[in-house]
């Protein structure tokens, strides 16, 4: 073959490959779309069938009640007769509404006009003299479908995993995923003090952008947050230690659990910067999801500037003894550097991650299993006496980064940690962090939209700031880092058919041109302008 033919063959192969990949993506997406549509249709058909059953039932009961009413009138009992007549009317109305729904609303929903159908239904209810549904019944939340209930937390609140409907998703700008609804209801036994505390926590969580939605009424209030389907760090770490045996975790697992603790400390740094104190750091309050640890349970979150007296709430072995001491002294939150109490908890969690058990003796707890000296050092430093521990989460974070950066914490000595003034890489790291600080939004942002990262996530990501192009047409990019990403990222991550179809069309076009050139080269066709 001649040079031009080779070129044509190579270009043709590339174009075919790209077209095939794009075709695969398109079919895959179409498959997902079809499955969603089928699911939607099936759901709507079930509702249609329910409407029809309700219609038939309503008509039957309405008709049966008519002779009952007549009979009562005959035996001179006008009041019960009227009641039966009213009931008959109500049943007939239900039957008519069901018929209306089956004949009009459901077909609209099948056609994908659900929002319009809901609007019509609401207007119809108003037209029929009914009040539109403004307050949900217990364990029902307008705009959400409850999927299951979780075990109650320490605050006594009810926790529901729910799926927002399309309208709510658009309102919340929450395109995918599930939510968790934390509901406090006096009728469910919630105490006023708990409500008050949670109200404070809600304010704090809103400040951090963690709350997607909230609503309060006379007897109940609830708030909505993103739901992370995962297991808690406690279970995760225990299972790793069970698998590893008495020898302790191997290097890969150590880096992984270290990175998870780092996620917690990074979150604490942002919370503390926002003037908030979590107050209940423990493995069970971190959810491991796609290789990242997310801090949950806002039940005890308190503003660092609060003038309230310290309380001893918290969890045994993860609660700083100094907190108890200060609480007994009657100190106010604003009088102490309460953020450091969280650091104790973070140190205890790191100890737990390395040992698989909690630090029964606080900072004096020994390490029985084999683990890197630098990680042991960090755990102890965080749990040290109040005045001797890390000044803030940033300092602890810098040490953790140094320990995890090289993927081999055993090779890092305590002397190499930045808090010890060690490590030649400190300057480089500072540059990297400065770059991150410059490119990432400064204000605390919610962790709700953190992009899934490869495991172990953080140490590697911090080696060099990684840039991810978000729009190839405009050249827009964002820096992928361990820092919480802005909420807008989730929208940009939405997947559609557009790009895949465009790539496929372009590839097919390129293929067409190549074939045409080949045909021209073979003398089968002429150039259009020749």
């Amino acid at each position, binding site marked *: 073959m001649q040079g031009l033919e080779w070129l044509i063959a190579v270009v043709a192969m590339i174009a075919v490959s790209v077209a095939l990949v794009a075709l695969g993506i398109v079919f895959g997406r179409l498959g997902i779309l079809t499955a969603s549509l089928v699911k939607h249709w099936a759901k709507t058909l079930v509702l249609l069938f329910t409407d029809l059953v309700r219609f038939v039932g309503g008509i039957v009961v309405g008709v049966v009640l008519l002779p009952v009413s007549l009979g009562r009138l005959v035996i001179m009992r006008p009041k019960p007769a009227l009641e039966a007549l009213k009931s008959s009317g109500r049943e007939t109305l239900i039957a008519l509404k069901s018929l209306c729904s089956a004949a009009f609303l459901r077909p609209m929903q099948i056609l994908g006009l659900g929002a319009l159908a809901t609007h019509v239904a609401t207007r119809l209810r108003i037209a029929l003299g009914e009040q539109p549904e403004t307050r949900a019944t217990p364990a029902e939340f307008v705009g959400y479908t409850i999927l299951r209930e979780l075990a109650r937390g320490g605050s006594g609140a009810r926790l529901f995993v729910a799926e927002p409907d399309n309208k709510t998703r658009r309102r919340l700008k929450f395109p995918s995923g599930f939510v968790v609804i934390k509901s406090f209801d006096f009728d469910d036994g919630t105490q006023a003090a708990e409500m008050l505390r949670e109200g404070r926590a809600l304010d704090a969580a809103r400040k951090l952008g963690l709350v997607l939605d909230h609503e309060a009424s006379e007897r109940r209030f609830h708030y909505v947050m993103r739901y992370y389907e995962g297991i808690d760090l406690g279970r995760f770490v225990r299972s790793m230690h069970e698998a590893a045996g008495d020898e302790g975790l191997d290097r890969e697992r150590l880096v992984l659990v270290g990175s998870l603790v780092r996620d917690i400390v990074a979150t604490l740094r942002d919370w503390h910067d926002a003037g908030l104190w979590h107050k209940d750091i423990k493995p069970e309050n971190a959810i491991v999801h796609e290789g990242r640890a997310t801090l949950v349970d806002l039940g005890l979150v308190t503003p660092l500037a609060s003038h309230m007296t310290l309380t001893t709430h918290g969890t045994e072995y993860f609660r700083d003894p100094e907190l108890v001491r200060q609480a007994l002294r009657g100190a106010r939150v604003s009088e102490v550097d309460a953020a450091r109490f969280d650091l104790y908890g973070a140190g205890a969690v790191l100890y737990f991650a390395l040992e698989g058990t909690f630090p029964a003796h606080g900072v004096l707890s020994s390490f029985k299993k084999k683990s890197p000296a630098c990680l042991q050092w960090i755990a102890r430093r965080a749990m040290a006496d109040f005045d001797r521990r890390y000044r803030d989460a940033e300092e602890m974070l810098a040490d953790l980064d140094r320990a995890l950066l090289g993927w081999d914490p055993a090779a890092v*000595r*305590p002397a190499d940690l930045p808090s010890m003034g060690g490590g030649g890489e400190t300057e480089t790291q500072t540059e990297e962090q400065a770059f991150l600080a410059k490119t990432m939004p400064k204000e605390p942002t919610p962790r709700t939209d953190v992009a899934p990262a490869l495991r172990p996530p953080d140490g590697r990501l911090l080696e060099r700031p990684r840039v991810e192009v978000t729009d190839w047409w405009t050249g827009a990019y964002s820096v992928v880092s361990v820092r919480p990403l802005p909420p807008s990222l989730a929208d940009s991550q939405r997947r559609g058919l557009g790009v895949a179809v465009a790539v496929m069309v372009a590839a097919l076009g390129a293929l067409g041109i190549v074939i045409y050139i080949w045909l021209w080269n073979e003398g089968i066709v002429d150039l259009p302008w020749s």
Partner: protein
Amino acid sequence: MGTIPTMHQVDTAFLRRLRSRDEQAWFELWEAFGPVVRGTLARWGNGRLGEETLRDLTQDTLVALSDSIDRFDPQRGVRFSTWLLAIAKHVLGDEMDRRYAQKRGGGKRGASLDDEWMGEARVPQPDDEYERRVMAAKVHAAIRSTQKRSEFVHFEAYRMRVLESKQGREIGELLGVSEPTVTRHCQRVREALRTELAVAIEQWSYTDDERSEPGRAGLADDDAAFDDALGEIWRAQEELIARDIAARDEARRRAGPGGGGRART
């Protein structure tokens, strides 16, 4: 080589703080001996006492201690450990009476804390393990106190030397300092430990026999023996508490789902 100084003024001062309901003093007492009381009650309960009951009884012991502190006379020659044990036993006995009364259909018998059990007549006989635990609790309190007072790096150097049996050179390498510096760090911490140990022993000892316990345990000897003895007590105390915790976790597991985690308080 060092000796434990006698500091009778310390114990009376601490008693005074307890009597004046100084929260800090009570917290110190609880921090040091709470685990001992809980462990002892658990051993006496022989698995029959649930986690909640144990916690309640431990707190009841503290309350009883608080009630009787005004009447306690350290001059009677009762060991601190015996006094503490007597109160815990009294609380447990009261709980048993209450349970029997409930079985019989009666109400709770009113608890009476007379001074009788401070005398020799009804003194419960503490076993060796209990005495070891109390002694270890005092040493542990001293270690805690030293840790608070010492520079973090100094204390860690000492810990590596005593608990992890690391050589000075190895510690120096880890901390980025020379071997003589490590030795100086360790010496500082050791001196602080001796002082704190003397305070802790005096604070919670009311008989000469109790005061001489550290000497018998090797804590009054030369530096090497002191380190060995301290390391041994430190490790033993950790093991005792680890055993208690394992037993508690086992009890929680037996109690069924939801009992495995540590509850928020």
